[in-house]
């Protein structure tokens, strides 16, 4: 049935910390590895070792430059640069003229104030009212009543791809090799898998993340760790205005230090007063540079 179940009490989902994600793609690789062999696999690629590999991945990691006007703004950053792409030399020239002063003193490169790189993993958000489910003509797409996970029954899918059109988050990818739609399963074959150690009963992407930027839990439970994280860090939903009520949350990057201001001289060490042998004095000079 592609009509939605009544609102679920349990809302399993992910919380992704954009502050510490380093964009290593380990989550994407771990996801591909697990799901290729998991209950919803395989995830075959066409031309996997060739010039144009193509295949389904449930995780895609974007990288953005965010030129800030809010966080860490020293007041001299001015209006953010928009419009056509400039060549390197134009940028360098503009850096001297524009109020976007270099945040690193003496740097020849234009590094505007309050600019940051944000790595942005994108996967299914397991929406509370997902259009991808209701548009499905066959009943292959469904939302589980017990925990809210959105799944595709690959034995029923006819491969019409309407669900992929209906999803604004790009969560669904069509497998040309298998002729069916595939998507993130929230590792439903791990999180309830009693043959795994309890500590391993988490989505593969969460287990793999080397910076622990990904958290898994019940966002319907106010007292769960993920809900507390969201409350504490101001976790937000993607494109809430479309009305699909995503369950997953993103934790925004923390405010950056303003590197154009001198660092607060925290605990200046007292200079070494002791007379030193020449070799040590030389090493001290080198290290003090």
């Amino acid at each position, binding site marked *: 049935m592609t009509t939605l179940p009544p609102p679920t009490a349990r809302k399993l989902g992910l919380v992704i910390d954009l502050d510490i994600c380093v964009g290593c793609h380990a989550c994407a690789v771990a996801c591909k590895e697990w799901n290729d062999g998991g209950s919803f696999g395989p995830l075959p690629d066409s031309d996997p070792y060739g010039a144009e590999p193509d295949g389904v991945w449930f995780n895609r990691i974007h990288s953005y430059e965010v030129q800030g006007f809010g966080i860490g703004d020293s007041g001299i950053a001015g209006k953010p640069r928009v419009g056509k792409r400039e060549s390197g030399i134009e940028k360098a020239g503009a850096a001297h003229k524009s109020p976007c002063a270099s945040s690193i003193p003496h740097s020849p490169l234009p590094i505007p104030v309050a600019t940051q790189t944000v790595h942005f993993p994108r996967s299914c958000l397991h929406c509370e009212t997902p259009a991808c489910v209701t548009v499905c003509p066959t009943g292959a797409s469904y939302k589980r009543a017990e925990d809210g996970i959105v799944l595709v029954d690959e034995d029923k*899918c006819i491969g019409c791809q309407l669900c992929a059109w209906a999803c604004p988050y790009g969560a669904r990818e069509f497998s040309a090799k298998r002729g069916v739609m595939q998507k993130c399963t929230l590792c439903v074959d791990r999180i309830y898998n009693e043959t795994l150690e309890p500590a391993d009963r988490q989505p593969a992407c969460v287990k793999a993340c080397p910076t622990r930027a990904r958290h898994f839990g019940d966002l319907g439970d106010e007292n769960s760790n993920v809900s507390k994280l969201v409350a504490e860090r101001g976790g937000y939903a993607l494109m809430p205005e479309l009305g699909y009520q995503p369950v997953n949350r993103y934790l925004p990057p923390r405010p950056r230090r303003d590197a154009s201001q001198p660092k607060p001289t925290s605990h200046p060490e007292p200079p070494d007063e002791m007379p030193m042998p020449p070799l040590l004095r030389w090493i001290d000079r080198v290290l003090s540079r």
Partner: protein
Amino acid sequence: MRPTFSIIFFTVASGAGYGLWILSGWLSLLAPRLADDRNAWAATDLVGAALCAGFLLVSAGLFSSLAHLGQPQRAWRALSQWRSSWLSREGVAALLCYIPAGAMLLACTLGGWATGDAIDTRSSNWLLRMAGSRGAGGILLLLAIVTLFCTANIYASLKPIRAWHNRFVVPAYLVLGIYSGALWLWLLIGMMQASTTSSSLLIGICAAALAAGVLKLAYWQFLDKPGAAAPDATGLGALGTVRSVEQPHTEENYLTHEMGFRLARKHAHKLRALVLAFGFGMPTLLAVLALALPSAGAWASWLAVLFGMGGIFIERWLFFAEAKHAVMLFYGARSG
């Protein structure tokens, strides 16, 4: 969105087919009024021919739509979720149309349906009487409109695509379906040299072309208008100006292939002019010509179908090619 030939052919051909069926139903409702006409029997033949042509167009379109599926042998499953899915509703309505259309066709060929209820009562077969009654025509008329309505709503219900999720899409599908059906009906009349409904049909074609032109112009104006600001897909817009510096994948993937279609979009304005001039303008001119010179009607109808269908084909191509999907915002597109 990538314009896929199978879907464009499906919506254009079956749109014309359902248009023809709508007009067949309409003609059968008019039948009692034609009963005294000396051309009444010709009108029966015309309805039969229109039903047949509609059958061919609709069936060709539906088969073409199967070519779009990854698993076409499971297509029957698509009839199950009519409670929530417009695509499923379309499938159900599309197949239901075959029942009144088939019954009417049977009645036409067996002579049950002829010049209205007067003759029907002479038929001993109650099934033929039912099929030949105005009821069957009315049901076909209604179901064909419902089918077109469902087709249009498949697109109009998709919020991530601004070019589809707007109030112009449903009326455009309905008007274009009826308009192309009328062009085919004109062709059939020309082929059968039956002039019963010709002049009112020609006026109808001119009106439909005008309505279609106005609708598409309003639609394109809506597309070009920088509407509500594109949604901030990543939510990072709150922190500053967001620029994509690294794509998630080196090669094209399903999403960028299917929803990042940009080829030839720069020619959109020329193609729009082609649609207006050839798709709607030429058939209107030809219809006016045929009104003035009835002898020119036969070859004018051939040209009108050619131009009209060609124009609608380009219109449908543009409907896909010009549509931008919100997911491309993640890839750095400027508007959704």
